[in-house]
């Protein structure tokens, strides 16, 4: 008798596991499908030039402002290329950062130091470090690629009155600073409205809010204000795009070490 009960229990447990496995598979399928829609909706912009301000705020409320410009080039079937030029703080004026992001392997990164006229290679496997003392990690600013995560659809819900999909994405790279990210994608344009970042201990580390979405080139939606709040340290960074122009005619040869040295 005991044996029978045990067998039945085992059988039903197996069945339950199978059902939940199927539903996980289905959710992964839907998660990936939404991620593809997100990527697709943000493609075809070719290149862009942006002027930004970055306001850093510490727990005491002191603020510090940085001004920067970012040139970007869309690359099909790999990560995008980016060139960031710092205008302030004054002591780092003219410093430029070249990033060739990749879908799977680590990004290739170089930093140009104008006082030394030197280009330094950056060992970039560990992308969890902060970008310019801000609450943004390098990996937060790298281009969104499907190969970087596994996806899981959680639910359809609303966020501040907007219809959204909640998707969980787990970084594939073991050197990522995160165990997972929860992303709220707008149903209207598939771009994120909010992201929660969970640290290596699986505790909530940061929340990112993306505000002020505008449509460019009749199809590309971009937020002009990104607010990253570190819930563990109470520090915050606001990244504001003050100017953004697409299809400016940038080419691959605007994103090599020679162009890094003359970037101003």
């Amino acid at each position, binding site marked *: 008798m005991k044996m029978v009960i045990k067998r039945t229990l085992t059988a039903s447990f197996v069945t339950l596991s199978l059902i939940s496995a199927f539903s996980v598979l289905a959710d992964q399928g839907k998660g990936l499908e939404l991620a593809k829609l997100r990527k697709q909706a943000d493609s075809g912009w070719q290149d862009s030039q942006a002027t930004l301000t970055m306001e*850093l705020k*510490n727990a005491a409320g*002191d603020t*510090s*402002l940085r001004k920067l410009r970012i040139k970007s080039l869309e690359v099909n079937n790999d990560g995008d290329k980016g060139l960031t030029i710092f205008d*302030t*703080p*004054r*002591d*780092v*004026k003219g410093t430029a950062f070249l990033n060739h992001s990749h879908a799977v392997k*680590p990004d*290739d990164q170089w930093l140009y130091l104008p006082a*030394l*006229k*030197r280009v330094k*290679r950056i*060992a*970039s*496997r*560990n992308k*969890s*470090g*902060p970008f310019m*003392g801000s609450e943004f990690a390098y990996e937060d600013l790298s281009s969104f690629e499907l190969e970087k995560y596994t996806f899981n659809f959680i639910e359809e819900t609303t966020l501040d009155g907007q219809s959204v999909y909640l998707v969980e994405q787990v970084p594939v790279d073991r050197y990522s*600073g995160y165990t997972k990210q929860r992303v709220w994608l707008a149903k209207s344009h598939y771009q994120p409205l909010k992201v929660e970042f969970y640290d290596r201990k699986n505790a909530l580390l940061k929340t990112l809010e993306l505000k002020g979405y505008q449509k460019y080139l009749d199809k590309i939606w971009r937020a002009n204000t990104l607010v990253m709040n570190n819930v563990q340290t109470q520090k915050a960074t606001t990244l504001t795009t003050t100017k953004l122009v697409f299809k400016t005619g940038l080419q691959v*040869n605007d994103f*090599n*070490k*020679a162009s890094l040295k*003359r970037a*101003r």
Partner: protein
Amino acid sequence: MKLTALCGGATLLALSQSAHAEPWQHSGEAQVQQRGFFQKKPHSENAPKHWQGSVMIEPLWQKVTDSSLTSVKLFGRVDSHDKERTHWDIRELSYLTYWDDYEFKIGIDKVFWGVTESQHLVDVINQTDSVEGFDGEDKLGQPMAQFKAVKEIGTFDFWILPYFRERTLPSTEGRLAFPLPLLDAQFESSKEHNTLDLAMRYSHTLEDWDIGLSYFDGTNREPYLQQRPNGITPFYAQMWQLGTDIQGVFGDWLLKLEAIHRDSLETYFAMTTGFEYTQVGIFDTVMDLGWIAEYSFDERDSAFNQNDLFVGWRLAFNDMDGYEILFGLSQDLDSQHTFSAKLEASGRVGENWKWQVDAWAFASDQSNSPLFLLKDEDFIELSLSYYF
């Protein structure tokens, strides 16, 4: 030479000012600096026993268009004691134009080659401004014409370098100086300063490797210091040099090698090799700790780094004010008591100010070691800079 260049440059600027509508961007740095020496044993009675102060200014003007970049960077320092350290220079006065895969630059500028941190063997285009920075990182502006081609198979650079500049060296009125007065320089070439030097470089990035090959033919930037009864004569010989610099990135590791074969008064081989390893987010903070270790070898027994090991740590706070601390130790492996140590710390105050502390200590019991001259010159240097 500097004045002629400046007049020529001013004319050029006046012309370009009227020809284009793009505005000039102004920026720069102004600095006050105080050095404190621990040992009261200067080489001369005129030199300061403990304190040597100075002020510096370095304004920069730049004009950027879609296909060109014009730069003017001047530099001047006034020192409390050392008349050689009271000096000015044209760091940059150059016009760069670029099209497709090519670049052409003419004027005065600085060029850096290399990958290692403890010394820069392959980097030979610019003369060192050694009164300005004790560590050899500061350079004098070099007149040049440069052509660059960026191709699939790599980047090719060619330089013509008219005019040779002598190394700046501290006088006996200042500290960190030679024990004897400096005499007029002598040259192997009868053309003295008016030589025409050539340089070329090939560089390429192959996946995780950055490689460089360079060739230089001209006046050796490094003077042979010849002792005479009444002082020291810097002698500038001719040389040619073949150099390579290679860097590989593997995870959090950067592997580095610089090597040269130089044929001057002496013919020799020298190299520096090592690694830089970065720990991101140490002790559960946002701070990074970099580990640097480099070994240097030089065939000349009298060289600074004939058989030396450098180890260093760089701590970056990654905070709003950009605090950074670097500690480095250079040990002569042939002589236990010959070493130098440096500590560098810096940070920002507000948007426009930056402080920096540099401290150096030297030890040597070998009278033939270059460090022996510095053994009583341990110092700490405080700098406060305003960026505008």
